[in-house]
């Protein structure tokens, strides 16, 4: 199956088959679309490698929670309800970010998005299919790291949204008839009859490394090998939050997330316990950007805690999510970012005993003064026992 692996050396530029306006014989190239503006909104389309990552591949579970903890690799199960939509790891990065990087926005009007920048029009750009083939490839890469990296066995997930009153998955066949399929049908490439030429496992960090860094004993490290990925603990609670909304325009914005001393101590205790516990279970910690609203297309942000970069975020679907009569009811987007590594480092440097965490958000795309992006609340959640 063809795909666009923007992570591969020298492949982060849009493939020429899509970027050339004409065929070699002079005819129009149907794979070229003019409404593909790129990260600098000048029609040059590439993926800046410092704005994408593969951190999701290291997420131990497929299915996450809506309560502020990990959204995991694949996202959350929302049941019959449609509230609490939050993107999973692979959807946040690289899926969403590549959408807004490729689509960009009209150089003359930042509110006019490129096709790939909006969920409703993205499929009209032929590069959409190669981007999604890459996401499908990354799903297979993630699956090749058992025992924890397995798809949900839950029957509702396997039967797909049609069993929950939503639209069924359908793909037009060459004869125009639909091919109806479920997630369960998509879990085995051999059965599906296609594969990818590169399914190399790329892990950003083995979880065992985290335990070693936190000072786990050699005995517990040996004991946890093979089972460390099977977490299954989702006690999620708020650690701290900002007290007023944040307004982001072309300049960076700063805020302070006030931490509750009791819950912060709980996090620190779980990290300290790694040194002595037989089966340590240190908390994971997540930064939530809640009620993110705005009307600017292809918005990208870089988030820092103190001087440390947390992540870059592409706000794919921001405009629609900000409208009260659309599917998200105007609640905006919620972005969940794993800050465990930063919190671990603060703990090891004895700097976690603080009243607040300073959060800095730097825009990577144009946000006009008159159409700001707002973040209703920035919060920190712990997930542990």
């Amino acid at each position, binding site marked *: 199956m063809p795909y666009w692996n923007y992570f591969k050396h020298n492949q982060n530029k849009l493939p020429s088959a899509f970027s050339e306006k004409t065929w070699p014989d002079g005819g129009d190239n149907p794979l070229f679309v003019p409404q593909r503006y790129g990260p600098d909104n000048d029609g040059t389309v590439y993926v800046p490698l410092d704005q994408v990552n593969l951190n999701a591949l290291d997420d131990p579970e497929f299915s996450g929670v*809506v309560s502020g903890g990990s959204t995991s690799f694949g996202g959350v199960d929302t049941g019959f309800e*449609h509230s609490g939509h939050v993107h999973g790891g692979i959807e946040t990065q690289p899926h969403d970010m590549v959408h807004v990087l490729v689509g960009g926005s009209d150089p003359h009007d930042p509110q006019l998005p490129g096709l790939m920048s909006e969920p409703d029009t993205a499929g009209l750009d032929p590069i959409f299919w190669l981007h999604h083939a890459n996401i499908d490839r990354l799903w297979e890469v993630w699956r090749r790291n058992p025992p924890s990296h397995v798809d949900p066995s839950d029957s509702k997930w396997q039967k797909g949204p049609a069993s929950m*009153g*939503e639209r069924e998955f359908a793909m037009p066949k060459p004869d125009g008839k639909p091919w109806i399929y479920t997630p369960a049908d998509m879990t085995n490439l051999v059965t599906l009859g296609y594969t990818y030429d590169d399914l190399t496992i790329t892990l950003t960090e083995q979880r065992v490394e985290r335990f070693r860094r936190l000072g786990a004993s050699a005995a517990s490290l040996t004991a946890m090998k093979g089972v460390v990925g099977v977490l299954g603990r*989702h006690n999620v609670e708020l650690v701290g939050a900002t007290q007023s909304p944040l307004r982001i325009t072309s300049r960076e914005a700063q805020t302070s997330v006030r931490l509750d001393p009791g819950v912060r101590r709980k996090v620190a205790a779980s990290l300290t316990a790694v040194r002595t516990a037989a089966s340590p279970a240190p908390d994971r910690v997540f930064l939530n950007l809640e009620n993110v609203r705005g009307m600017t297309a292809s918005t990208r942000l870089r988030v820092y805690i103190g001087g440390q970069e947390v992540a870059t975020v592409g706000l794919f679907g921001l405009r629609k999510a900000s409208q009260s009569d659309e599917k998200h009811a105007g609640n905006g987007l919620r972005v969940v970012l794993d800050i465990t590594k930063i919190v671990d480092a603060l703990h090891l440097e004895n700097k976690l005993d603080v009243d607040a965490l300073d959060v800095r958000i730097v825009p990577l795309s144009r946000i006009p003064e008159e159409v700001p992006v707002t973040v209703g*609340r920035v919060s920190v959640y712990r997930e542990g026992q």
Partner: protein
Amino acid sequence: MTAAARERLQIRVPMLLASGAAWMLLISESSRTSSFSFCPADMHGVTPLSRFIDLRLSRSFFADWLLMLAAMMLPALMAPVRYIRDRSFASKRMRATVLFLCAYTVTWTAAGSALVALVGLARVIFRDSHLLATAIMLALLWQSSPWKQRCLNRCHAEPELSAYGFAADLSALRFGLVHAMWCFGSCWALMLVPWLLLRGHIVAMGVVALWLFAERLDAPAWPAWRWRIPSKASRIVLAMLVMQLKRERQGFAPFQHQEPT
């Protein structure tokens, strides 16, 4: 079961149990009396205005009213209650939930009492049969209107909530108040019909409660004039029926793979 489903159950179980208990009490009361004190149709014959006002403000009115609200509305409140719980510190979840529910109840009760009073006054002037017919027409009209859709959309709002101190209490109260206003706006017309029935209140209330719960399952949509039925709930029921039929015909083989061509 997924982690998210386990989180949902923590809210669903107590709220559905509370709603079920309220229904049981309502049913047991309905077996004793012909209707409830909050129903404008409970006074047979012409009622002097003074007696009407006395009855509306009686203790039994508020007791019945709270029972009705708990029975009919708690299932529809699962999503906002889960939201407020998730956004609060663990030590303040119960407090925030109680404040939200109090503000919701007070607002709904204030708006509902005004509506009951209006209908009661109308009943002094008009005949019962005319009132019921008017209420049915009004419910159909409101159900099809863009205003109903706007109210439904706002029922899905998840506002920013403060986490600390008095501001946290205030935002829980504000959330409850605002949610109740949109909820009342969404429900009032349909609620009128069982209130005005001379018989079969409890059955009609059950049907209306199911409808109100089902229509909350639909995602927000653009406000427009259209005939509005709970489409997602209908599709869920249909999908379940189809799966059951398939199971009966083919044995248990839920995932039949279709090769792409």
